[in-house]
């Protein structure tokens, strides 16, 4: 894309898109915005919309048409579309909690609203504080310093909040922030992306007075612990660490490494709630 002749238009073809996954689509939106920023808008975007009405409704619901400069003509009406919310920002903007979650004030217990506010703003703080530690590892030098993107979605009795940044990722910043831990993990042969995420969180939760920074990751991960059926997945580069509050009590953990990296960090909180129907 970046080797195209000056001011050549870039065409995005969504015609064969039939279904949108919130996490994947959030990354697409973030990457698109990064590309446009990187080229200073020199390359006008053109777009072929999906023939799928649901996909078009989502485009309109999150106002992607404004960014792409073209409307699908669809009207968001379906129940699984009208509860999508999208915001983006830079550094820490706590007030943007309301843009994605104020619709759920009646359904979420006050303690969960508070936990979500804390989790989201700590994620923003991490983006702001670690943006300049390392360049992104995708081979392209343009950085989206301190930027983040966030979706919320209500579907099938679950509220899902997805937050992402396009930074260096936890596995690459851990050796800078916690060199002793990273060194120990390497010596034991544990150092992969999923384990780096897991141990960063574990370290953050258990940290006491030795370091005044870095407790936020623990708050991000633990906010689901007291809500049976809730879970959080933290994807960073090629790894994912998941934490879930079991219906039977206790907290479950999972981790996995993928072949490819997302070159950044994505946090997905999923919480079971009963949305009251609007009259």
């Amino acid at each position: 894309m970046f080797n195209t002749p000056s001011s050549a238009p870039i065409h995005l073809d969504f015609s064969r898109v039939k279904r949108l996954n919130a996490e994947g689509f959030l990354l697409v939106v973030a990457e698109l915005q990064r590309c446009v920023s990187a080229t200073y808008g020199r390359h006008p975007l053109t777009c072929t919309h999906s023939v799928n009405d649901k996909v078009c409704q989502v485009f309109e619901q999150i106002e992607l048409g404004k960014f792409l400069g073209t409307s699908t003509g669809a009207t968001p009406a379906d129940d699984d579309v009208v509860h999508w919310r999208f915001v983006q920002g830079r550094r820490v903007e706590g007030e943007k909690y309301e843009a994605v979650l104020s619709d759920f004030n009646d359904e979420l217990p006050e303690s969960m609203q508070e936990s979500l506010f804390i989790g989201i703003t700590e994620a923003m703080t991490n983006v702001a504080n670690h943006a300049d530690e390392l360049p992104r590892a995708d081979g392209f030098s343009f950085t989206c310093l301190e930027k983040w993107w966030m979706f919320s979605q209500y579907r099938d009795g679950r509220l899902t909040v997805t937050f992402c940044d396009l930074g260096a990722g936890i596995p690459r910043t851990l050796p800078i922030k916690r060199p002793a831990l990273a060194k120990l993990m390497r010596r034991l042969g544990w150092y992969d992306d999923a384990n780096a995420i897991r141990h960063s969180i574990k370290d953050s939760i258990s940290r006491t007075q030795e370091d005044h920074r870095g407790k936020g990751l623990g708050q991000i991960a633990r906010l689901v612990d007291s809500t049976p059926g809730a879970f959080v997945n933290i994807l960073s580069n090629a790894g994912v660490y998941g934490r879930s509050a079991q219906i039977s009590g206790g907290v479950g953990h999972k981790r996995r490494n993928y072949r490819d990296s997302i070159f950044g960090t994505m946090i997905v909180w999923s919480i079971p709630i009963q949305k009251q129907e609007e009259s």
Partner: protein
Amino acid sequence: MNHVKVATDFSRYPAGRFLKDGPFSGEAFRNKFLEPKLLAGEVILVDLDGTRGYGSSFLEEAFGGLVRHGYDADRVLRLVQLQSKRESLQQEIRGYIRDATRDS
């Protein structure tokens, strides 16, 4: 006694650690409300209720940061009085003050 209600005098959305993070960070709160009173040796009552919440980054920098900036922890605990429906929040803040160590 000096009194500050965070939700109305500062922000309903306090968040972030440093000034560079945003306008309602822990450092901003410390600079604006806490340090001037401590410098003057005055007691300040901080009413914590009414905000959306407090992340550890904000709290640690606002209160623990006082100790790093040279104020004795006992003096901070004596002059900065906390008010909240949630005792656990007050305990968390006192913990940050006790745990913070002075920057050399």
